């Protein structure tokens, strides 16, 4: 006789914690509940594994889950083309007055702007955005508050040093692929990041192709699409990013 059968006790799990565990494919039995009577709370689930991890073994599915659990990270991807004409003209005009900005700076600012415009996405932890550099990340906090000039100087400083912000919280990582005439179709999420934006600027800078990858457990598909739409709008009407 299986001893475990006799010892089975009903796990006390808050509905939200149960949902998070189901979505992330996490085994509830392995969790220590911090709530009253050992009830497993959302914080306990979040604390176990912060990143969606593929789980294939049916043994560790939540036993109470009646619905068939899909033990895989729930990824979603959204593509968009960005018209860069207006931005290019604006950057050129600024350059003529001695103020130089790269598209990297504008993309960081536009991503923060999209967070501010999409309340559900904003709840993922605010506006810190991670810029992917070679083998490391630089996280920019308070992007909306600082001037674009100081944002640029912070970015240039980050490029110069060697430290890695991969452990710092940020909802989004931003990857600029040095490939023109390429449309990215599939990009994995980075650990700890619920969203990843990949951008390929076409030769000549007239337009860019971008791909937004998201973890649907953290962000609803509709909210993700709204976020991308907000980003596209900000890039294509760039003036407000500079004020």
């Amino acid at each position, binding site marked *: 006789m299986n001893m475990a059968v006799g010892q089975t006790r009903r796990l006390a799990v*808050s*509905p939200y*914690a*149960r*949902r998070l565990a189901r979505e992330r494919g996490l085994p509830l039995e392995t969790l220590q509940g911090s*709530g*009253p009577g050992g009830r497993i*709370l*959302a914080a306990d689930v979040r604390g176990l594994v912060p990143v969606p991890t593929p789980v294939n073994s049916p043994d560790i599915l939540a036993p109470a889950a009646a619905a068939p659990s899909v033990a895989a990270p729930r990824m979603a991807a959204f593509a968009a083309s960005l018209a860069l004409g207006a931005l290019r003209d604006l950057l050129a005009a600024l350059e003529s007055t001695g103020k130089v900005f790269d598209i990297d700076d504008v993309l960081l600012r536009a991503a923060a702007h999209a967070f501010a415009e999409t309340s559900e996405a904003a*709840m993922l932890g605010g506006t810190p955005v991670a810029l992917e550099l070679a083998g490391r990340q630089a996280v920019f906090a308070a992007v909306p508050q600082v001037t674009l000039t100081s944002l640029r100087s912070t970015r240039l400083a980050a490029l110069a040093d060697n430290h890695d912000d991969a452990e710092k919280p940020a909802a989004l990582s931003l990857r600029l692929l040095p490939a023109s005439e390429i449309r990215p179709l599939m990009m994995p999420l980075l650990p700890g990041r619920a969203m990843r934006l990949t951008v390929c600027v076409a030769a000549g800078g007239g337009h860019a192709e971008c791909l937004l990858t998201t973890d649907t457990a953290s962000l609803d598909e509709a909210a993700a699409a709204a976020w991308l739409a907000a980003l596209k709008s900000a890039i294509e009407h760039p003036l407000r990013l500079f004020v």
Partner: protein
Amino acid sequence: MSAARAREDFKGAPNLPDREILLDLFERMVLLRRFESIAQIACRKGETPGFLHLYIGEEATGVGVCAHLRPTDWVTSTHRGHGHALAKGANPGRVMAELFGKVDGICGGRGGTMHLYDRSVGLFGTNGIVAAGIGHAVGIGMSARQQGRDDIGVAFFGDGAANHGGFHEALNFAAVQRAPAVFVCENNLYATATPLKSVTLNPEIATKAASYGMPGIAVDGNDVFAVWLAMKEATERARAGKGPTLIEAKTYRTVGHHEGDPVIGTYRTQEELDAWIKRDPIDMFRKKLVQEYGVADAEVLATIESRIEKVVEEALTFARNSPEPDPATVRLHVFADPINPPAALQPRAAGETRTQGWLEAVRDGIAEEMRANPAILYFGEGTGERGGSFAHTRNLWQEFGAERMVDTPISEQGFTAAAVGASATGARTVSDLMFADFAFETAGQIFLQAAKLRYMTSGLMSAPMVVRVGAGALRSSGPHHSGIYHPVFAHMPGLIVCVPSTPADAKGLMKTALRAGDPVIMLEPKALFASKGEVPVGEHYVPFGVARIARAGADITIVAAGQMVQRALEAAETLVAEGVEAEVIDPRTIMPLDIDAIVASVRKTHRLLIVDEAWAMCGLGGEIAQAINELAFDELDAPPGRLHTAPTSHPFAPVLERAMLVDTARIVQGVRDVIAGQPPVPDHWYTVGLKSAAPAKPAPAPAKPQPTLPAISAPIAGDDEPITMPFGDLTVSEGTVMKWLKAVGDAVKEGELIAEIETDKAVVEIDAPVSGTLVAIDQPVGAVVPMGGRIGGIKK
């Protein structure tokens, strides 16, 4: 003027009305009689659902009164009101279809026999509530006057209503307002089965008018011309602005109280009935027309009768052929759709504001709306020149005058009924009841009349009045002046319930309420009357059903309305020190309830605490918590909590009152408890004392199964005419065959008594449905027969 005098007046009078008028009175009485007779048969066959109260015997009153009325005058009626509906001009086929509960009925099948309304002919409802319509007629008259018309309101009611507060309050209010109204008491001597003489020491109802300083006239209610004469004078008086009149029409119903009720019963004798049948209003008038007035002969009257016969037959066919209402429409016509008036749906730019006190802001709102709409009337106790007990109507009387800022007697039922009647006929009204507790003095008008009007009429009518009250606890106001009761009102489909928490919302909701299509219960927390806040300058409407996020936060959602909002905000500020950011949602209107805003907040915070000034039992806390279970269960990281005022009446002693109410400290602790996963445990069920009691016995099995009603439409096989146990009283389901007066093979005549069946309430006489030969006795003496069941057959 006595009944006898009325007749004397006529005999010598040369002013006999036109022949057409006299013949029309006859025709209408025949219509009422034949219609009711057909309805009676349909009821016995089980074709009409529900109760049926017939007007047979009282036709002269309804016809004599309504002959003076225009379609733009309104009559309010009683449970015995088919005759009033027809006399006022309602289409017989559509009235019959309504009795059948069919889609072509005048109320689309939602009203039925006791709730017949027809705006096109001025029929303000038959009414299932005794005396409820009397005050409506007062408001109807005042509404017409305010709109510059000389239309009047006429209330029919029975002798039973003359001992009801609704009668006294309405007559007094009407008299003092010189309301263009006529009150017609159909004294048929019995309130259901209670003799008038046994319930009053003054059975002369007409004399009660003297108490209110208005003329009272008693007439022979079976003499249509006497009624016609009395009503002529009363109508002219009302139209001329001289005030209301009470007419007592002494009459008699020659049928039971309702179908299935015995004609004689235990309360009246066969001799009395026979005496009144000899005074049948139609027979009496027929004789007068032919013999006394000489305006018609038997042939002319027979032509009229055969024409009416055709009308009622067509009405019956129309009703039978009309489809049933579509069950998919059952949810329609509870509220206006959209529930918000256009003004409240306008997008508004955030503009200039100014700091205002609560009372001033709401006063401004009312004044703005009264300037914009001259048909707004404000009824209240001391709200006129005095400016209201809370100074909440200060200066309005000075600007709008006593005709619009109407100072009322302490007659909540009377003036709220008037508010219902006025608001349903083109005016808009505020019924200011001073304290929420006082609303129960007129609960029937709010719950049974105003709230249901739109639904009963399938959306053709509504009562867009505002019930304005000061609500909630305030410094030892005590048990009768402290309640808020919003869950009680919100329970009733058809009522909009507002509990504002800021001067801006109070003004904006009041302005929206004064443009809305439905009755609004405006519960203004007295504790906030002294509060100040930023109020938008200019037109400012707050839509119903849109919550306000009073404070944003990510850790827990607190739902609070009225004076609890400020307590919740104070608690939220205290909790910041503990690292807790609470979101405070102010629903602003309890009905409609912006549940979406609460769900959206819980999706963010995953925790919920409802804080409400009303009591917990069947209350807002349970309602919202369960809604979250249903709509956002997977979002909950802790059981929702609720904090309500303790389940006691409001004590007077300040220390006791403080112990009863929810305060900031309790909210802070409640938030901590919910976050800790252990919400406050309520104890409002009062079951503690029962815990040790013996286990409840299982419910006993029913003594015997209810007999199954036979399908109404399924004909019994055979070529004979079935004799059936008639449908009748709704509370009786079967009867025992007591006697067969005929044997198989006997010849029987249509209408002849052939059997008797005894039910729990009475002996039912079974008449032969057709003439012929009794060919079958299916149910012998002693057999128990369900209603509608076949007991035998007759071959023609």
